[in-house]
């Protein structure tokens, strides 16, 4: 396979996507082939050194926003079926109580997971903030209670120090937990996105 054939095959594989989403990566592959040619390789060798068309296409797809993929897939299906047939419109309307409720449930489920993840993160930082506030209040209160007696002042001051110490320790621990939760959220999103990317066997 030479340069023209490789780039044409890649463009054909991604033909369902808008040109602006494809031109950038295809230009990049073309440039890499040119660089290899300057390095003394033949076109066939340069192309053989690249990933297969399928792998390159999948990597480009994985990098696109979900909205672009969904929009293009809907458009592609519409074009393949020669426009929306009346039968499909009737079926969509008749079946709407089922598919619409399923769609709403799925969207609500994804949204709930995200809300829960963020709620956990916010709660963790709320704990840190409360402990920090209690720490400051305890330390200041320690001085405040000095006229009332050493024991109350020391108790208050000590409590404040414990809270401040916990706040500092938990801040770092919770920051790590928050990172993990955000990573989990990202993985879930990538999973949802993968459902819309064209499957290898469906080409």
């Amino acid at each position, binding site marked *: 396979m030479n340069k023209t054939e490789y780039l044409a095959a890649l463009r054909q594989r991604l033909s369902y996507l808008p040109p602006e989403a494809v031109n950038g990566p295809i230009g*990049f592959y073309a*440039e*890499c082939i*040119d*660089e290899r040619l*300057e390095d003394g390789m033949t076109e066939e060798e340069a192309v053989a050194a690249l990933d297969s068309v399928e*792998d390159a296409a999948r*990597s480009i797809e994985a*990098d696109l926003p979900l909205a672009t993929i969904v929009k293009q897939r809907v458009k592609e299906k519409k074009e393949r079926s020669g426009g929306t047939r009346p039968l499909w419109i009737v079926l969509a309307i008749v079946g709407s109580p089922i598919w619409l409720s399923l769609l709403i449930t799925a969207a609500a489920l994804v949204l709930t997971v995200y809300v829960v993840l963020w709620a956990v993160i916010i709660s963790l930082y709320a704990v840190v903030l409360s402990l920090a506030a209690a720490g400051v209040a305890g330390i200041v209160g320690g001085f405040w209670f000095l006229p009332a007696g050493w024991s109350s002042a020391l108790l208050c001051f000590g409590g404040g120090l414990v809270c401040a110490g916990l706040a500092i320790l938990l801040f770092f621990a919770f920051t790590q937990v928050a990172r993990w939760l955000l990573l989990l959220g990202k*993985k879930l999103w990538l999973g949802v996105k993968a459902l819309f990317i064209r499957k290898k066997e469906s080409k």
Partner: protein
Amino acid sequence: MDAQLRRGVLEICVLKALEKQDSYGYQIIKDVSPYVQISESTLYPILKRVCAAGYVTEYSVAHNGRLRRYYRLTEAGAARIGEFLREWEDIMRAYSFIKGEGR
């Protein structure tokens, strides 16, 4: 290697390849591949990501009758390398512990 970890490490390798001088796609692959496996398919999304994050800027230069796209490391990109190295020290300590060193 875990995919997420590999992506993160590759991103820093790409930034490191741009530390000494501006570079272009194929040269980056040649510089990084002796250390970590990398191809055009993995490099392109990484370059897009680091550009979007402000770690790298890009510009084109005429070369042999075509345009060659160069990438330049920004201050934020250099800071990201430093941040990664600091984070990695913690991981290396854990690694030593797991390997049973320093006991």
